[in-house]
């Protein structure tokens, strides 16, 4: 590979790729570094301080927004993952090919359409049927756009799975429910887990839909952050951003690790 005359090698690609990864991570590092700046003005460094973390953790509005986000995300994740699991089982195991194809497109539709269009469309629907409950509005909308993110890992896991185990269990007179609970579910657990994690992250991160549907009492975390950004960059905001970036990195890493381990099992 390091052979200079290797025809597959293009000169300068290594340096270019290194630059690319710097480009990918430097902006995040900037936020992290400035979150430890004692000065109130983000760009002017005075000295190292963790005081903005203390003030962020004592911010009641932030904690309320976090609570709203968590309630919406957990509920939406449970709904989306359940629906995605049932859809994936039906699509992989079902028989009618045409119906399965159309259904798969429908499940993945939120990935194909611009979110802002879906957001205003749901806003109109909810106002027409007079749905007032802010939390319920958010949960319904989030469940819908989280479903494909839960669906794809589960589907990938199911697709690589042999039917033999389930058939063996059913030949041994296990009921359908037992087969599902004792054989199918444990086998697809990694896909289920990473799907749920990704759905949770997508819900926690969402701004466009939440901003459109949120009302007084149901401000989610990104909507709250948006209002902070609108007020100007601040070190406390940098501290909040740093904590959230870290949380996302950890959750995404776990989800991706589980998913890749699941893939390795297949090989």
């Amino acid at each position, binding site marked *: 590979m390091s052979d200079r005359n290797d025809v597959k090698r293009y000169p300068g690609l290594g340096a270019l790729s290194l630059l690319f990864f710097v480009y990918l991570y430097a902006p995040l590092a900037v936020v992290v570094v400035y979150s430890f700046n004692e000065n109130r003005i983000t760009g002017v460094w005075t000295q190292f301080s963790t005081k903005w973390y203390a003030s962020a953790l004592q911010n009641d509005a932030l904690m309320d927004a976090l609570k709203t986000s968590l309630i919406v995300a957990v509920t939406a994740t449970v709904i989306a993952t359940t629906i995605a699991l049932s859809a994936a089982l039906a699509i992989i195991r079902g028989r009618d090919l045409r119906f399965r194809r159309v259904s798969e497109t429908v499940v993945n539709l939120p990935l194909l359409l611009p979110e802002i269009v879906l957001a205003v469309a749901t806003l109109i629907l909810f106002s027409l049927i007079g749905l007032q409950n802010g939390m319920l509005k958010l949960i319904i909308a989030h469940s819908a756009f989280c479903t494909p993110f839960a669906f794809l890992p589960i589907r990938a896991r199911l697709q690589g799975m042999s039917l033999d185990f389930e058939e063996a269990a059913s030949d041994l007179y296990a009921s359908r429910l037992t087969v599902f609970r004792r054989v199918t579910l444990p086998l697809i657990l990694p896909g289920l887990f990473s799907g749920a994690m990704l759905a949770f992250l997508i819900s926690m991160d969402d701004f466009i839909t939440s901003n459109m549907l949120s009302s007084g009492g149901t401000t989610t975390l990104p909507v709250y952050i948006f209002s902070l950004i609108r007020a100007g960059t601040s070190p406390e*905001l940098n501290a909040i951003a740093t904590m959230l970036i870290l949380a996302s990195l950890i959750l*995404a890493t776990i989800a991706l690790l589980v998913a890749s381990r699941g893939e390795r099992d297949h090989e």
Partner: protein
Amino acid sequence: MSDIAHHDPVLPSVAAEPSRGGIWRNLAVWGLLPSWLLMGFALLVPIIIIAAVSFATRGAYGGFDWGFNLAGYRQILFNEGWTGELEFTPQYMVIILRTLLLAGTTTLLCLLMAVPVAYYIANQPRHLKTILVYLVTLPFWISMILRIYAWMIILGRHGPMPRLLELFGAPGGLSFMYNDGATLAAMVYTYMPLMVLPVFASIEKLDGTLIEAAHDLYGNRWITLRRVILPLTAPGIAAGAILVFVPALGAVLEPTLMGGGKQMMMGSLIQLQFGGGRNWPFGAAIAMTLLIFVTIVLILIARRAAMREVTT
């Protein structure tokens, strides 16, 4: 095949076939019912309604009254005066053109960066490859608003970018915020992973012997890239282009935060129409226009990718 199974008891594996249907019979219908219900209620019905609203009349106190007229669409091009006369106004056309231009440029820039990087990653040893792909994926899972915020710091007054340029003699106190360039910077950054991953997936599948063959036939690296590598990665490039161009067309946060409210794109224009209860039919008309653009892009790219697959 099932006929043989019924007549021939010595083929147990084939005879077991019907039991497959036994466990999973009707599963397709019942298993898909919840997704159809959810997507129907939260997606399909709302899209039909917004299509209808785009032809409705603007309500006197915000909202709308059902009906059929083209006022929402007409407003994209014309301003209606007090006496009902129509006057051409370019302001919304400018927003639509800016949207197409910025989304197109974003896709192109992402592609230019993604192809060499994806090629480099694909040629790494297996273990390193896994780590690099993971590093590309990771930023995607960080909240978009935070990734854009990072660029507000970088380009803003006292930020690292103006500081860097001061070292090279630029005047102090510069800010690169609130223009199309800033919007573009944030868009390229936020959508980049969506381009690298599919391009990588198709470069990885590339048969190395074809590249060697091209060289044996006296093709230099540039010719090999243009005539062998790029055509063979067309499906990945098409997938990446869809994954970047479609959300870029609907971008809301980038123009709102980076463009500073005046340099709007279609997404932020739609949001504005529904924000303060301003003009729902007009907002719906813009949303439908955006949806039509997206559909055209999906069809065009899908068809071209299919054509390439047939011809190569």
